[in-house]
């Protein structure tokens, strides 16, 4: 394999490589224009292109294909040969799903119309994807017949791919399928309930529990076999008695875990089919942007393929979506790869706002700011159903667009970007256990979770027997920490609780919203992280149950129990709710932990006295405390932050809380500026000492920003600072003086 990944970077033939490419769809272009078009692509500074190979275009009828024999524009072999002549690398995406705004998303019509292949809803209907120019039933990734049919297509296309694999050919990576995401209908009780999918569910349960008695014990049921377990078709947990509610949750949480398993299964089947046919190269996959929660499981998917990227199509006003995606990949992925990044927009009669060059100018640099090891611009060359690329389908150029990408590639070279690494001392984790509950409790199945629909619009608001409405609060609390650290100018990476202990150890601080339950393995991992010298930030509650709702207090046994509670507390503008107060002063008097009368604390009397980081009022009880554990600490805040949906909701009170936490965990603030509309990131090159400060103005008006020192502006070459003006929706790239 020529393209490999080490230390979150791509290497081609053992040489570190920044993977910068752009999409060109050969079959949609006149063959006589291919050469001219590739020359224009090269002139912009791209050395790699990316193309789909759509099944429906090449298949004439079942088992009969046209790879240029009839229509010369379909000659994949000739196109790949031409790329090689022009010394260009290729990322190849043979599907079977390709979307690419093509009717039926690249599946032949006979495939989507075959009832044996179709995915099935909870009510037994096919699943209709409403895309123009034809709505169509989507296939099931649990259908054996589907894989048999894909196999026929792969049998035909694989020899062409093999003949062009690097090093003798130009293909350096192959994508297995495309945006595996239940066709964006990810609500839990929507689909797939086909026969194959229900069989797969039984297989998942068997792999998880091994013995049906173990499942019966967990579910309080009496099933005779795994096949007898009926999948949930709705969230009925709230209808049971209050004292039994969360006992039934494992059934629903398993269903969500199965949904993750279903996607992993689909990916593994497709990737395996490619490998079986000799496609021995780096295999990757792409997910729609911001798919950081169930049913997506990035870490598990990267156990199947080499790398999983995100596809980003955002407007300039959506800076934080770009940041979250890129930071998440930095925190969790084997190599942060933006497998599709908007260059132009879809031209179909649907109400989707065009993504213009103005958007790209900001979002592209926003992505650069947070660090990637690869980016693929979709599309570099315009074609039917796509508008706004730098090159038109005749090989002509859109001057402004062309210049923009040319300049972008030059800047990457000037920065020696492939050598840079994001400097984040902290990481903020999504609590996957709670995220599974969030999805499981959906009331809006089957409305697709797209656009601006966030969990608060669809989750049940039953407390399910817990201290908080976890499914509502887990995202709210995460958002408060995310916007809080950002506004206070402490760059933190993003990840989730599935990431390895080794990876956590790279950070000084790990923050994660925690509630009444958490998997035993995650509790152990977080505890070990702290014991080994890390600073773990958790709250509002300390888990006392595991994922199966059995007692598990690995973290709790090291921490204080609340002394008293307040419904609400206003802290300098931050309206905190369900506040637990802790009594640090009483710590020396705590009785033996075995004493049932103990109410003030559960930690052993030999443990170090925790430090109060923040009190409700001077001399009053503690809101946040820091407890030493091993060679590290756990910081526990026992309250709910208010809803923070955007940076402007960040109050002085929240900033003060973040400041205390950051100071106690040894994080360094990047710049003195506190305007929440300004965001910053730092990237460094380990070998030469070059350091870049990125300053993003996420607002529609220009801002004067205190960057705290003198820097050289990479684009203008001018020395700026300590106060510098940042135009609206602009990322400044400032290089620190190396002297």
């Amino acid at each position, binding site marked *: 394999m020529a393209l490999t990944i080490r230390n979150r970077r791509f290497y081609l033939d053992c040489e570190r490589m920044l993977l910068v490419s752009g999409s060109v769809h050969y079959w949609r272009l006149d063959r006589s224009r291919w050469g001219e078009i590739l020359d224009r692509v090269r002139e912009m500074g791209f050395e790699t292109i990316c193309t789909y190979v759509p099944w429906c275009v090449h298949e004439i009828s079942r088992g009969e294909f046209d790879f240029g024999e009839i229509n010369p524009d379909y000659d994949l072999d000739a196109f790949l040969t031409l790329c090689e002549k022009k010394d260009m690398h290729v990322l190849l995406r043979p599907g079977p799903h390709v979307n690419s705004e093509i*009717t039926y998303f690249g599946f032949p019509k006979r495939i*989507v*119309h075959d009832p044996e292949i179709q995915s099935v*809803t*909870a*009510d037994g*209907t*096919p*699943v*209709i994807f*409403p895309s*123009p*120019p*034809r*709505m*169509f*039933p989507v296939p099931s990734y649990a259908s054996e017949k589907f894989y048999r049919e894909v196999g026929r297509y792969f049998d035909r296309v694989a020899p062409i791919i093999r003949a062009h694999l690097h090093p003798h050919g130009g293909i350096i990576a192959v994508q297995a399928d495309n945006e595996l995401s239940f066709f964006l209908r990810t609500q839990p009780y*929507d689909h797939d309930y086909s026969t194959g999918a229900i069989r797969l569910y039984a297989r998942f349960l068997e792999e998880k529990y091994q013995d049906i008695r173990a499942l019966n014990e967990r579910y309080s049921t009496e099933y005779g076999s795994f096949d007898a377990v009926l999948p949930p078709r709705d969230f009925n947990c709230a209808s049971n008695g209050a004292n039994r509610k969360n006992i039934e949750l494992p059934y629903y949480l398993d269903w969500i875990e199965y949904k993750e398993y279903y996607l992993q299964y689909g990916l593994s089947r497709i990737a395996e089919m490619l490998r079986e046919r000799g496609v021995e190269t780096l295999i990757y996959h792409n997910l729609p942007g911001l798919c950081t929660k169930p049913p997506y499981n990035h870490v598990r998917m990267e156990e199947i393929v080499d790398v999983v990227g995100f596809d980003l199509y955002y407007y300039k006003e959506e800076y934080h979506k770009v940041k979250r995606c890129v930071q998440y990949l930095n925190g969790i992925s084997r190599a942060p790869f933006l497998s599709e990044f908007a260059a132009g*927009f879809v*031209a*179909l*009669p649907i*109400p*989707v*706002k*065009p993504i*213009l*060059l103005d958007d790209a100018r900001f979002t592209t640099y926003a992505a650069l700011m947070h660090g990637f090891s690869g980016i693929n611009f979709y599309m570099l060359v315009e*074609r*039917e*159903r796509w*508008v*706004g690329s730098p090159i*038109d*389908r005749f090989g002509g150029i*859109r001057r402004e667009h062309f210049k923009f990408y040319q300049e972008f590639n030059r800047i990457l070279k000037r920065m020696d970007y492939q050598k840079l690494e994001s400097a984040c001392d902290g990481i903020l984790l999504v609590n996957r256990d709670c995220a599974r509950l969030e999805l499981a409790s959906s*009331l*809006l*199945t*089957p*409305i697709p979770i797209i656009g601006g629909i*966030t969990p*608060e*619009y669809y*989750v*049940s*608001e039953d407390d399910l027997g817990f201290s908080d*409405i976890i499914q*509502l609060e887990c995202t709210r609390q995460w958002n408060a920490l995310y916007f809080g650290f950002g506004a206070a100018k402490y760059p933190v990476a993003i990840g989730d609780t599935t990431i390895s202990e080794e990876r956590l150890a790279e950070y000084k601080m790990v923050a994660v919203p925690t509630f009444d339950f958490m998997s035993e393995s995650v509790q152990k991992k977080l505890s070990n992280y702290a014991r080994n010298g890390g600073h773990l930030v958790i709250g509002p509650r300390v888990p006392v149950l595991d994922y199966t709702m059995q007692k598990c207090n690995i973290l709790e046994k090291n921490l204080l129990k609340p002394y008293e509670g307040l419904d609400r507390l206003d802290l300098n503008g931050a309206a905190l709710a369900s506040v637990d107060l802790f009594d640090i002063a009483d710590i020396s008097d705590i009785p033996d932990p075995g004493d049932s009368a103990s109410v003030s604390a559960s930690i052993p009397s030999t443990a170090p006295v925790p430090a109060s980081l923040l009190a409700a009022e001077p001399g009053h009880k503690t809101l946040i405390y820091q407890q030493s554990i091993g060679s590290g600490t756990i910081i526990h805040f026992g309250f709910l932050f208010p*809803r923070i*949906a955007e940076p402007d909701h960040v109050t002085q009170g929240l900033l003060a809380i973040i400041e205390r936490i950051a100071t106690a965990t040894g994080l360094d603030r990047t710049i003195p500026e506190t305007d929440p509309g300004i965001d910053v990131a730092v990237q460094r090159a380990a070998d030469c000492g070059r350091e870049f400060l990125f300053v993003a103005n996420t607002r529609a008006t220009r801002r004067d920003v205190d960057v705290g020192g003198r820097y050289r502006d990479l684009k203008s070459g001018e020395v700026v600072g300590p106060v510098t003006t940042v135009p609206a929706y602009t990322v400044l790239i400032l290089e620190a003086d190396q002297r």
Partner: protein
Amino acid sequence: MIGENVRIVDWGIEQWNNFYHAIFHSKTPESAIVIIHNDGVPIKVVHTKDGSRPELKERFSDCCQIQDMMKAIYREEDVKTVYAVAYPAIRRIFTRFERTVDCDANYIKQLFSLKDAISCEFGHGITQYPAGSHWLADFEYKTVKKLFASAPDNALVMLTIFSGQDIWTNWIIGIEGGTITLITTLDVIKPKIGSTGDWRRECRQITDGVKKQFGVKPLSFFMDHETFRGLIEAKGKLRFFADALSTKKIVSKALPIKYRIMLFLRRIFPK
């Protein structure tokens, strides 16, 4: 209607952007509150802008009927509309749609299957306060079909909208066998069309240019931006269109003879 393999090519960025904003984003979205209920028992209250508002559920818990709760919330909260959505209604919409949609039918007909599935819930699974017009419920596919049947077959239809003297947006639609097979713009031929400084004079030149490129004289409509906005906002779009044609706010070229006679009569007998 819309062909399975319709070609949508050669669009100017600005043209697409202008058209999108004219059609889809002419107004700022109005705020609303949605009550999700199960058999009349509220289980969730959501503000379209502020997200979940659980306190509203508690504050209006003394309302016996969901309709009372809608009215009370409407009176006290600054929102344009309050909706009540029965929990199973959403699933019923999807099920009804997915059972009835014809996967071989054209896209417009497929959209009507979805519209019909939603309409079935109006007044039952989905209610609103203040009551809406429900015009959508009465709008039928056969009306669109009739309208489409009146368009010439195997022809090009062109719509051009001007902003000042510039082309603000332009659509050229190719129809073959009653199906739209091409959606494109003047962009490919635009450089060959010189600007006369007066869009009313430019109409013929544009029409001739399109004929030269595609070999067919298009049925063309030209209007300024203001008229187009009026058309988009008009409740009776057909009437507005006909009026604008007869008063020459909309200029047409290559209109079939029967329509020209109708327009002529309309000018003479305006009422």
